[in-house]
């Protein structure tokens, strides 16, 4: 039996997603093909898992508890350097693709992705059933920022595939990594990766960076804007 040699070739439809005033979400398309050295051999059944992760960020998840009859934030957990956006796609359920053990090793699916928490002085990921971890994933999913779909990778031919990466309106800006893993009959075959970036451009970027880097000037501009609007209104609507 000849040594199997397969390579993945992938590309996204747009490497630079720009946020403009009327940005309300966008979709990227990922295309890929499996290149086999031994073209004569019949292609084996391929499985694909695509993991798109956005720029890492720190988060705090808080849980409300009833205290003195009021629902207030009580317990909290810190998530350190976890993806601010995470989309995991496959062509069929993970359990059908490979074993539990292999899923864990290859970090396939939301249950197996590493979400580092600060637990006391320790840094560790916890079990998938941890309430804070589950709440974190659920809330991110509700905003469309985390998602998992095991039917989102379409195999057009046995070696050609496509996946749509939806970017919601609230998408974080920064660099995104797309990691594609190729499996066959439960075994890892090859992987490939590509990147794209989400950037604010023009006016949006100008406002966002001014607010941070030239805070005083930004504040003064807002005040001037407020006073001008107020003054203009008193001139326009003047009745006495």
């Amino acid at each position, binding site marked *: 039996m000849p040594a199997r040699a397969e390579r993945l070739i992938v590309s996204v439809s747009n490497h630079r997603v720009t946020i403009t005033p009327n940005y309300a979400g966008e979709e990227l398309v990922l295309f890929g093909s499996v290149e086999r050295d031994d073209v004569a051999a019949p292609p084996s059944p391929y499985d694909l898992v695509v993991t798109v992760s956005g720029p890492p960020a720190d988060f705090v998840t808080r849980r409300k508890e009833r205290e003195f009859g009021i629902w207030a934030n009580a317990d909290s957990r810190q998530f350190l350097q976890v993806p601010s956006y995470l989309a995991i796609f496959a062509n069929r359920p993970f359990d059908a693709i490979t074993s539990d053990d292999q899923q864990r090793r290859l970090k396939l699916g939301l249950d197996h992705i590493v979400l580092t928490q600060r637990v006391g002085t320790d840094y560790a990921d916890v079990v998938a059933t941890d309430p804070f971890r589950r709440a974190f994933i659920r809330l991110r999913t509700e905003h469309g920022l985390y998602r998992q779909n095991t039917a989102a990778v379409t195999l057009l031919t046995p070696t050609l595939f496509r996946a749509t990466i939806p970017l919601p*309106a609230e998408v974080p800006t920064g660099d995104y990594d797309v990691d594609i893993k190729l499996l066959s009959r439960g075994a890892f075959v090859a992987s490939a990766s590509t990147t794209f970036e989400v950037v604010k451009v023009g006016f949006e970027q100008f406002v966002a960076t001014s607010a941070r880097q030239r805070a005083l000037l930004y504040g003064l501009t807002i005040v001037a804007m407020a006073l001008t609007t107020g003054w203009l209104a008193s001139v326009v*609507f003047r009745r006495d």
Partner: protein
Amino acid sequence: MQIYLPIADLPVNMFLILAMGMAVGFVSGMFGVGGGFLMTPLLIFVGISPAVAVASVSSHIAASSLTGALSYWRRRAIDPALALVLLSGGVVGTALGVTLFTLLRSLGQLDLTIAISYVALLSTVGGLMLWEGFGALLHMRRGLPPKLRRSGSHGWIHGLPLKMRFKRSKMYLSVIPVIVIGLLIGFVGAVMGIGGAFLLIPMMIYILRVPTSTTIGTAQTLTLATMTMATLMHAVTNHQVDAVLALILMIGGVTGAQFGARAGQRIRGEQLRLLLGLLILSVGIRFAVELVIQPQELFTIRETGLMP
């Protein structure tokens, strides 16, 4: 039409925000208050984070109070000396308020503090106004002449030292209670994202005994100054003022206020107070309900830092 807010980091419907600005502007013009106590909760309701809402609304109130203050200035209905003394307290109060705001935000208790403050303040003030409004209305129904405030009734407030003459208001009064009230309004305003006129006006009338003729104009001048400062401080310390959101709110607000002011002139003072009391109380109750009933979602997430 969807428009992307660069600081709040989410797209909103521009016309919805404009309509909200106009509606709140209408109410504020009608009652002579800034309307921050309505605007901030509305923005939070459409999904804007409380921090961005509070910070951006302060600039919106600055705009509408300038419009008001200018028209009172032309009618010589502002007491500059009184406004200045109130402001000296207001500056300190605002600075303290913004500091507390920053601290609470890092502790994760900002939303709760804003909610509790709304409940406590709005229910009390709304309840009192409603009570007083009903009393006055019943009084009139019975055909009695409106109650006059007893002149010359000096409380302990008027016995305090450091007295000063306020010419335009024809008052001779200690500066201590004036500064304290200014401080309180500045503080509450910065933490809650409200101008505080609905608190300041009753305080000036009932505690300081400022004549009605100069009360609203002077209150608007103070609101203008504290909200201008609050905008600046929020911009510098928290970077949470959204320019796009602020501009849409301002335009809606100042336009709505003009129509509100016209509508307000056709309603009698007692009914106006009763309506405002009802409005304030219902906002307070809405916040109370939210605190007491079990929320559907117990968890919240906040980003603490994005690594570049």
